[in-house]
């Protein structure tokens, strides 16, 4: 080329390209922090960085008023033809999420047929319990699980904040189905939270690490949801309505759980300090990074059913309810720790109780199990009804017909419940202690508030080393070969 001016143009373009390249490659300018030992720290992948979540306004698809919730579902299925089928394969529909081996057989279990130590069992109590079922009309044992139009699309996808569910999972009376249907979008925290923040009968009762404080919450309360603005589905990334992440399920060896892990974004070496990275193999991230749960709202830690029925006591949802008994709520609770390899053993209907303090579920794993890590748990303790002769826990009828919540008659509630469950009943009932493990995964504190070394590695530390299978604190003193 002859003329310098063409070169000038070329140079201008080159300069522009170079600037663009520099801009794209530029870091965020934060200074490197001090380190004790060098390690390769994996920079976490932020799934929300630079991502826009497009939203298709569905109002134009629902111009007319809608009479029944099933009409909504049918309309959804006209375009989203596979959606109901996909949901029907999942635990949100079947309420069966795990399995156990009993006498050589694989038994599928879930909320449908299990007991817990909160409201205990849905058997006989379907109408009120299925308020949180992702479907319409489950009011008895005969619910038809094959009818697609009974899948509830709105509970997860409603964007109007005006959708609620009542008995048998049917929409509340004031719900405007047309407005709700037209507002659908990807689930936000209030969709998941409508059920998962309110389990066990009230806000914050059950999980301890899931409650309303996560909505528009602070980064101190939960780094991902408060500071980074993650919605549930940003970690629980769902394909074809299969939502990963259930930790509190029992899985036999034949079932593979669909889960996600901190390491999926944070990598295997998330710390700069090599000593901390060594902990990753044996200590769950949650252990150090969730120092306490129920930090804003208290959670139920103890539930004594045996005190229920006393009409002379004043009802107070945080202390005593005639229908339920006496409770103890705590906030800022320090978790209890146990080895957990991802599978739990589970007490199921008909199992003989093992002793005076029955474990409703038991995290499996030990120091010797290389897949196990030390996890934080909320342990909910209860005193609940059982059959002392047959040595089984009783699933009483509570909210259902003839149940304790209307008749205040344990004998009746127990008999009806055992009949429903098809279990032999001696006619005698008493109350026994139980406890249940709830893994703590949310309310991740900012890294400045993570546990310091001495929280565990000190005489008054959080971990019961002997219970965990060590002779003592592995740091300091004699260390045994692993």
């Amino acid at each position, binding site marked *: 080329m002859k003329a310098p001016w063409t070169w000038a143009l070329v140079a*201008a373009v080159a300069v522009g390209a170079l600037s663009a390249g520099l801009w794209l490659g530029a870091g965020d300018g934060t200074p490197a922090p001090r380190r004790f030992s060098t390690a390769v720290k994996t920079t976490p992948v932020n799934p929300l960085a630079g*991502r826009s979540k497009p939203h298709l306004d569905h109002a134009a698809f629902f111009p007319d008023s809608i009479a029944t919730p099933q009409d909504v579902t049918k309309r959804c299925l006209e375009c989203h033809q596979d959606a109901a089928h996909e949901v029907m394969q999942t635990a949100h529909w079947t309420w069966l999420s795990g399995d156990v081996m009993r006498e050589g057989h694989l038994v599928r279990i879930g909320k449908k047929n299990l007991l817990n130590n909160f409201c205990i069992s849905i058997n006989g109590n379907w109408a009120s319990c299925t308020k949180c079922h992702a479907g319409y009309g489950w009011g008895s044992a005969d619910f038809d699980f094959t009818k697609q139009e009974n899948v509830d699309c709105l509970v997860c996808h409603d964007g109007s904040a005006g959708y609620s569910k009542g008995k048998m999972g049917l929409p509340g009376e004031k719900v405007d189905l047309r407005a709700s249907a037209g507002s659908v979008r990807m689930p936000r925290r209030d969709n998941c939270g409508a059920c998962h923040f309110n389990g066990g009968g009230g806000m914050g009762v059950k999980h301890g690490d899931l409650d309303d404080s996560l909505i528009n919450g602070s980064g101190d309360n939960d780094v991902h949801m408060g500071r980074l603005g993650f919605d549930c589905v940003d970690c629980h990334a769902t394909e074809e309505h299969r939502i990963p992440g259930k930790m509190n399920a029992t899985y036999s060896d034949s079932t593979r759980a669909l889960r996600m892990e901190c390491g999926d974004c944070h990598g295997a070496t998330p710390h700069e300090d090599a000593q901390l990275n060594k902990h990753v193999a044996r200590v769950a991230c949650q252990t150090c990074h969730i120092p306490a749960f129920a930090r804003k709202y208290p959670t139920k830690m103890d539930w004594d059913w045996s005190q229920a029925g006393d009409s002379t006591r004043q009802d107070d949802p945080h202390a005593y309810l005639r229908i339920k008994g006496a409770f103890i709520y705590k906030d800022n609770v320090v978790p209890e720790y146990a080895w957990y390899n991802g599978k739990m053993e589970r007490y199921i209907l008909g199992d003989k109780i093992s002793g005076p303090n029955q474990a409703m579920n038991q995290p499996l794993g030990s120091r010797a199990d290389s897949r196990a890590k030390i996890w934080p748990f909320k342990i909910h303790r209860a005193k609940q009804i059982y059959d002392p002769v047959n040595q089984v826990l009783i699933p009483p009828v509570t909210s259902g017909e003839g149940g304790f919540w209307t008749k205040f008659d344990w004998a009746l509630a127990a008999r009806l419940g055992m009949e429903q469950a098809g279990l032999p009943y001696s006619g005698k009932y008493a109350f026994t202690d139980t406890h249940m493990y709830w893994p703590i995964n949310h309310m991740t504190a900012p890294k400045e508030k993570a546990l310091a070394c001495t929280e565990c590695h000190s005489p008054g530390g959080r971990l019961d080393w002997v219970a965990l299978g060590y002779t003592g604190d592995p740091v300091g003193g004699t260390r045994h070969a692993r």
Partner: protein
Amino acid sequence: MLPLDLSSAGVWVNNLVFLLIGLGFGAALEQSGFGDSRNLAAQFYLHNMRVLKTMFSAILTACLLLFLSAAMGWLDFSKIFVNQTYLWPGIVGGLIMGVGFVIGGYCPGTSLVSAASLKGDGAMFVAGTLVGAGIFGEVADRIGAFWNGSYTERLLLSDVFGWSLGATVVAVTVLALVFFFAGEKVEEWMATGAAPRWMPANGKYMSAGALALVVALFIWGKGMPSPEEKWEIAGGEWQAQLDQREVFIHPLEYVKTWNDAAVRLVTLDLRDSTAYAAFHLDAARSVTYPGLLDEALVFELDQLPPQGVVVLVSDDEAAALAAWKRLKMQGVSNLYILDQGVKGWGELFAPLQAHHGFDLSRPPARVLEAFPEGTWQAKIKLKTARRAGGLCS
């Protein structure tokens, strides 16, 4: 203050306005010779730099008019639609467009003008764009992660380079003038085959260029009006709202909004650091009055989605109002003040807290039931549309 608000003018007035603007657009394109694909393609063979000259003259003119009006306080730039940045889709799409440009000889707007002047190639090109857009529509959902990625809601060149708006305008002006000069010289070289004369000779062009530079330098020197100055000019629009206390929300409405997952709530606490450390609402951030103009905060607030709500907390109502005006002039749409501030908050919830024992910084949603209906009126009305969506969206 510009831009005009045509929302109350009715659909047909709006449509007529767009039609008229389109008329001007089409006419200007056709008069500039862009109804002829040969003119357009010639750009890429360097013997006719018409496209470069017209495009950059247009951009420069509009840019100078926009920012001159903004600097003089005649136009509120925070209300102007700025294309969202989707970096990689823009780059990939742009490269593809370049290929289409040099094969077909038009771009969508010019092809319309060409078709309108009865040119067969223009008409075929328009038909092609329909097909191409259709193909993209089929593919779009599948490449959604890419197409919706590398996104920033409102990113200006001044943000990228860390310069003031005025400095960026000057830089753009200089770039355009350099392009014009280079374009002229390339044309000269391509026409004569000999090295062009270096000295710029055309007096008219020199004057025009100098004028553009002078305007740009003036914009830089004058700077954009401060929020207070903008308020003097345009704040009257909101004074009625302030007088009728439409932007003051009751603590119970705040609690309700807190628990509304559809809203992205940002709470700014304007009190001093000691008061903040002693007590603050959960998720509230401590910001000083000068800190409201902090680049990082302004940028962050600019990226808020339509459901973003900003609430100001202070015990000094005058301070809260001043902060409100400042942020309003920065372009925050949904902006409110907590009525009675932290003091009122404490007075309202303390009796309840004594009885029920909850964290005062985060009362649970059920406190709403403890007050009779009519205790508070809903004031928050979300502006659900984007800041005037663009036409190509």
